[in-house]
């Protein structure tokens, strides 16, 4: 049962990341990978909101939303791959790669922390 919830959340999370990536990358904001950035920030914020009130939600929330949906909506592999690709584009590319790392880490941790404090009290 728990595994089923993880898998349903994982399917929906990956689907959302794919659609967000497609939608955001149509905007003329290159070269930063805004789709991955958006997915990672959103997933971290949502996980923070849930974790802040840990213990106060029904049992399905953890496997379905935290492990499944937030885990699959966010990604480390694509983040690393895109950072490497940026870095391989000369000195300007390296600056973009550094900016991608700084922005993702700062905004991702910031979003988690924000969710943690805004979430329902335990």
């Amino acid at each position, binding site marked *: 049962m728990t595994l089923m919830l993880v*898998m349903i959340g994982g399917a929906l999370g990956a*689907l959302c990341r794919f659609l967000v990536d497609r*939608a955001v990358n149509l905007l003329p904001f290159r070269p930063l990978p805004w789709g991955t950035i958006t997915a990672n920030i959103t997933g*971290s914020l949502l996980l923070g909101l849930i974790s802040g009130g840990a213990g106060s939600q029904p049992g399905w929330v953890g496997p379905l939303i935290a492990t499944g949906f937030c885990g699959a909506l966010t990604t480390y*592999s694509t983040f690393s791959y895109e950072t490497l690709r940026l870095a391989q584009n000369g000195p300007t590319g390296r600056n973009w790669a550094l900016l991608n790392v700084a922005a993702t880490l700062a905004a*991702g941790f910031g979003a988690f922390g924000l969710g943690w404090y805004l979430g329902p009290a335990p």
Partner: protein
Amino acid sequence: MSRPRQVAPDVLLVVAAGGALGAAARYGLTTAWPTPPLGFPWATLVINLLGCALLGALMQAVTTRSSHRLLPPFLGTGILGGFTTFSAYASEGWQLFTAGRTALGMAYLVATLAGGLAAVRIGVRAVPQRQKQP
């Protein structure tokens, strides 16, 4: 600016199926190898580094060879994207920092970041260069 193209339903299906499998594998690994409270999150680190190496190899393979069009969305976006996670990384790092375990938190932060980039490079280089057949 280009208009959004219609997404083929089979692409959506393989992304979702891959995400389910990737998340299940991550759940299995973290359940089998739990992190003690405020301990070093080894399972998530290994998951993320392994996923990075495999994505590097996959992307190198599909950009230098012809492959089935569903392969990148299934294996890359779906399985590896669902397997690796940024939210758990942020969560575990945050909990270490707020509990005062700053050095361990920094070590985890840097190990995943530097290790992930190195793992992608290793994955890319593990696949031999070959020109796509015309």
